[in-house]
């Protein structure tokens, strides 16, 4: 009996530190990600397609696309959808984000990216501030992490120059849904190239 008790206490004691991934590891973890990505970008020999594939493998492990889709649509709209609609929307939204990012990569020349600051906002939120340096000018990019169900730190939003990506989509989606149906929103997400022409 005593042994069981001891074991129980021991597991209780150990459970916490074992579950949590050290937050202090985030900067080094992200720096190594950034370095890997920069190396992939600098290596002009890698064909475009393979390059984005490699980069997205890294992204998939740190971005919580489902939560991002949910937040960009807003809780109320999200819960009103069926599971299959949610899945379809998430998929399209993930594509949209990736295509947008890939287009940004075309502009990449020789920018440097450095990690500036790690700030704990509250228990389950961390903001990682990075600086992108281009032609002597500094652009601030903040990656926002949250602790998910499995105690992994995942990115749910990115602030570029003070503009939240999720918020940007959220206002647009709300605007579309105020005037049109959910299926037309899906249609718009499918044509990533042009902002859909206005119906008069």
């Amino acid at each position, binding site marked *: 009996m005593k042994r069981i*008790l001891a074991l129980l206490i021991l597991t209780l004691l150990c459970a916490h530190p074992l579950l949590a991934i050290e937050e202090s590891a985030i900067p080094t973890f992200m720096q190594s990600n950034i370095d890997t990505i920069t190396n992939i970008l600098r290596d002009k020999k890698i064909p475009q397609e393979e390059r984005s594939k490699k980069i997205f493998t890294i992204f998939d492990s740190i971005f919580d696309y489902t939560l991002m889709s949910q937040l960009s649509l807003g*809780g109320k709209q999200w819960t009103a959808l069926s599971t299959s609609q949610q899945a379809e929307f998430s998929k399209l939204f993930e594509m949209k984000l990736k295509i947008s990012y890939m*287009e940004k990569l075309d502009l990449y020349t020789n920018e440097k990216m450095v990690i500036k600051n790690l700030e704990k906002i509250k228990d389950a939120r961390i903001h990682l501030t990075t600086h992108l340096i281009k032609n*002597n000018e500094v652009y601030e990019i903040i990656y926002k992490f949250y602790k998910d169900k499995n105690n992994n730190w995942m990115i749910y939003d990115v602030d570029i120059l003070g503009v939240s990506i999720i*918020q940007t989509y959220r206002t647009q989606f709300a*605007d579309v849904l105020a005037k049109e149906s959910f299926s037309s929103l899906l249609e718009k997400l499918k044509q990533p190239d042009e902002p859909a022409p206005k119906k008069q």
Partner: protein
Amino acid sequence: MRFILACLMSLSFLCASDYIETTAHSSDDFEAEFQSTNNENLFDPLSGYNEVMTNINDKFYEYLLKPTAQGYAYVMPQMARNGVSNFFDNLFFPIRLVNNLLQLKFHNSLQETERFVLNSTMGILGFRDVAGEELNIKTHDEDFGQTLGYYGMGSGFHVVLPFFGPSNVRDIVGISVDMWLNPITYLEARGDANLLDNTGQAIAATAFYTVNKTSLHVKEYDNFKKDAIELYPFLRNFYESRRDKLISE
């Protein structure tokens, strides 16, 4: 013994339920984080007009400004265009100085003055940004809209201006005050302090400045615009968030 065990077990369950509760809460947290600027409580009385003006401005950019800027870029080498851009930025020094002073940012005001003196002389009328390149003295962009925001004035509703693009009530007040400090505007009331002789020259100078600046950023802007699903809310959100950020700095 069993009792202690039971206690411990229930304790661990308590911990677990605590945990479940916090994760359930966190989705509310997320909602709260993005709710503040959501459409439902957004005051946008001019949305109809704004949307139309956004489209007009976009057409103006696509069919007039962009081709002009690209043609200009074709004949003017990038180095010259950077020089022109530096020249104008140097001219706008009074706007930055006054607004830095109004916001009590004395160190920044001093740096702005250093930049102006160095760039106007060694940088040959500001064409070269000597202070930035050699001495790493950065510019501190402030305008009167930011000054008003600094003293707590809210942004008011969003207004899309012809040609100028996205703005809001506060920033329109800001623009009209900054015009007094802007050397390339012409204001009769300013009398001899005017650098240019008449409104025509002022418009020409502003147009030249705009075409030159656009020519340096066509690629970025086009790329940025591709992200839009609905152009008006996209630009409105970008503008308002960006201004809030600039004011907070």
